[in-house]
């Protein structure tokens, strides 16, 4: 494709639809839901908006058409997500996690599994079907690919009970968006990463299982009370001898749970990136109109001060840079079947961290009034502080992934610019996960070796 940033007719229409939805359906509830001291009540306030989003196809747009979704591209998703997150990124997160959970099924599921679960998600007469992506754990998540066997890395186990043809899941998870469902009885589908082989490390021992709502032994408790992103909900989950049939293991993920984690968090990278752009954009618009109206006791609105104009210029150039990096990362994922682990991480890290700088500038511009709840900047800042640490944290997961990719001998620094497919391989996992154990063979010197040297 030639480089062309012109939106298609469909993308312009999608942008308009998402903007109308965000401004007219979502916005009226945001202030109250954000301010609600009880995070559960705040989440419940979003239910009507979620149902409308479901009706409009926003909740499962990424699902291929043959399973009832809209089959939209990653670039199309960018257009809609920016509009929603410019109003509230917490609500955007609720929608995003449907994708985080179902994309591994789309990539690795058998035809039968896809028909069963995806069609269920897209044809809910109640319009509130919700999916949870269950990875994070209370004792840490970043080192999911730790080469050590259980209890290193992911601690939730799924032991196979041969006599009954079932997996038995035990352990605790935490932070899993949507896992409450709408009644604290669980999401409609929980897509759970667990250790299916206790004797193996994170690169061989993890798999992904589908645990439907109502499965005995799955309990949700303790809603987390967050600083920002208050319209989305994260509980703790407890698995106690929770049994699912063997057919609920997503077919191609057996022993590849690590790849599922990385690919899902790659897919969501540009989405989180553009979510941060949406928030920055709102902060910019707030400070621009403030600068044109507020005189701070002077005789002219403060936009006539040079420092105000220069701050606006600095903010704007960073927002635009972030937007196009996200679009490009999404475009790269579209072109390479989501094998864009470098692109996804770059846009997620860059935009998330940038958003805090940009909102900080917006607050410096607006001055002390930015610090009170009467104006939107304090919320933008609370929301933005989440971007670098959620959706696979920028330090322990995203940068570490980039480190693994770049250290690998196959790494081509021009692959992204030249739109070449860069296949992610397991050898790129495990780097830095176990300090003191240097990962062998990733410097390009000598023969490559798997970094499983410490796994058993």
């Amino acid at each position, binding site marked *: 494709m030639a480089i062309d940033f012109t939106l298609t007719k*469909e993308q312009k*229409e999608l942008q308009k*639809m998402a903007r*109308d939805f965000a401004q007219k359906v979502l916005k009226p509830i945001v202030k109250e839901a954000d301010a609600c001291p009880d995070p559960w009540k705040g989440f419940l306030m979003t239910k009507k908006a979620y149902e409308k989003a479901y009706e*409009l196809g926003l909740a499962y*747009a990424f699902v291929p058409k043959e399973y009832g979704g809209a*089959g939209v591209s990653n670039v199309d998703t960018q257009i809609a997500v920016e509009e929603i997150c410019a109003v509230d990124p917490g609500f955007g997160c609720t929608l995003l996690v449907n994708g985080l959970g179902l994309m591994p099924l789309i990539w690795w599921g058998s035809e039968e599994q896809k028909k069963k679960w995806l069609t269920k998600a897209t044809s809910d007469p109640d319009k509130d079907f919700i999916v949870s992506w269950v990875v994070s754990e209370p004792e840490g998540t970043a080192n999911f690919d730790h080469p050590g066997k259980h209890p290193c890395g992911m601690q939730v186990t799924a032991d196979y009970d041969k006599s009954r043809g079932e997996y038995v899941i035990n352990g605790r998870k935490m932070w899993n968006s949507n896992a409450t469902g709408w009644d604290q009885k669980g999401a409609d589908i929980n897509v759970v990463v667990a250790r299916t082989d206790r004797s193996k490390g994170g690169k061989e021992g993890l798999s992904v299982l589908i645990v439907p709502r109502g499965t005995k032994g799955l309990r949700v408790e303790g809603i987390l009370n967050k600083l920002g992103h208050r319209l989305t909900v994260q509980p703790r989950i407890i698995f106690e001898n929770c049994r699912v049939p063997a057919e609920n293991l997503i077919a191609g993920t057996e022993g590849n749970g690590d790849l599922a984690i990385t690919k899902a968090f790659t897919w969501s990278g540009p989405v989180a990136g553009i979510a941060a752009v949406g928030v920055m954009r709102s902060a910019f618009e707030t400070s621009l109109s403030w600068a044109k*109206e*507020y005189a701070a006791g002077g005789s002219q609105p403060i936009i006539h001060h040079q420092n105000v104009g220069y701050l606006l210029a600095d903010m704007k150039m960073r927002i635009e840079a972030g937007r196009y990096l996200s679009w490009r990362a999404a475009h790269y994922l579209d072109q390479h079947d989501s094998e864009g682990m470098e692109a996804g991480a770059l846009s997620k890290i860059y935009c998330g961290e940038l958003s805090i700088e940009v909102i900080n500038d917006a607050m410096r511009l607006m001055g002390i009034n930015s610090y009170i709840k009467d104006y939107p900047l304090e919320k933008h800042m609370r929301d933005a502080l989440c971007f670098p640490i959620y959706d696979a944290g920028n330090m322990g997961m995203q940068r570490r992934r980039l480190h693994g990719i770049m250290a690998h001998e196959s790494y081509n620094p021009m692959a992204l610019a030249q739109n070449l497919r860069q296949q992610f391989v397991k050898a790129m996992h495990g780097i830095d996960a176990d300090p003191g154990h240097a990962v062998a063979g990733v410097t390009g010197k000598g023969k490559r070796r798997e970094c499983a040297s410490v796994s058993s």
Partner: protein
Amino acid sequence: MRICVLLKQVPDTSARLQAVGLEPLFGGCLPVVNPYDEFALEAALRLRESGAAVHPSPVPGGPGGPEGSCEIVLVTLCAAPVEEAVFHGLAMGADRAVVAEPSSGARWTPLETGRVLAEVLKTLGPDLVFCGEKAADDEAAQVGPIVAEALGVAQVCGVESAALELPGPALRARCRRGNSFHEVSCGLPCVATFLRGPALPRYPSMADIFSAKEKPVHRIPVSPARVSALRRVSLTAPPEERGRKMIRGGAREAAQALLDLIDRSVDCRA
């Protein structure tokens, strides 16, 4: 039955107008469907969904829609590209569009526009023609009545909501006149012009949007009969907005401060 909905693309209604010579300039704003036309299209979609609009076409011998179905056709005339507006109408649920493309980019007066649209409509044989009462850019409020006149059919103006009376069929419309309402019944074919009503225009879903590109858009060249004596002699942009005043404090103090301000401004004018 066939319902034709006239559609005009206008600049985003929140855009600030600048006057350069005789042409308005709307820098950097998005083109949108004239909001009143959106209400007209929504009314057409609801008529179809009510099931009543599938009644066989009453247009005698005319090429009305096939019996047992209701087709909604967008009709637009525009020298500038109207892709966004037409696409939006199709995504909302219209079946197809006819775009009349003038040979020159010259500005058309409402009379010329109305007559050309009527010529296009004659080839379509609609049972109903719906459009906005006025366009949000020039607010002329002439095209609907001119189309009705040129087609030689009845017109119902200022409609807020509409239904079909069966048998007949006839259009039953609730119309606004200032603060009062009246209901009329009008035999078909007829032209109805719409105001903002209680039925808000729908948002197209993702699936609607991505299937809209399959819907047919016919382009037909037209040239105006230069019939109008109307011409623009000057154009003035609205005055710069006056300085705003922020009122701070709790609801009670803010309300009092606002009342004081209003009192003072009324005093000044008296």
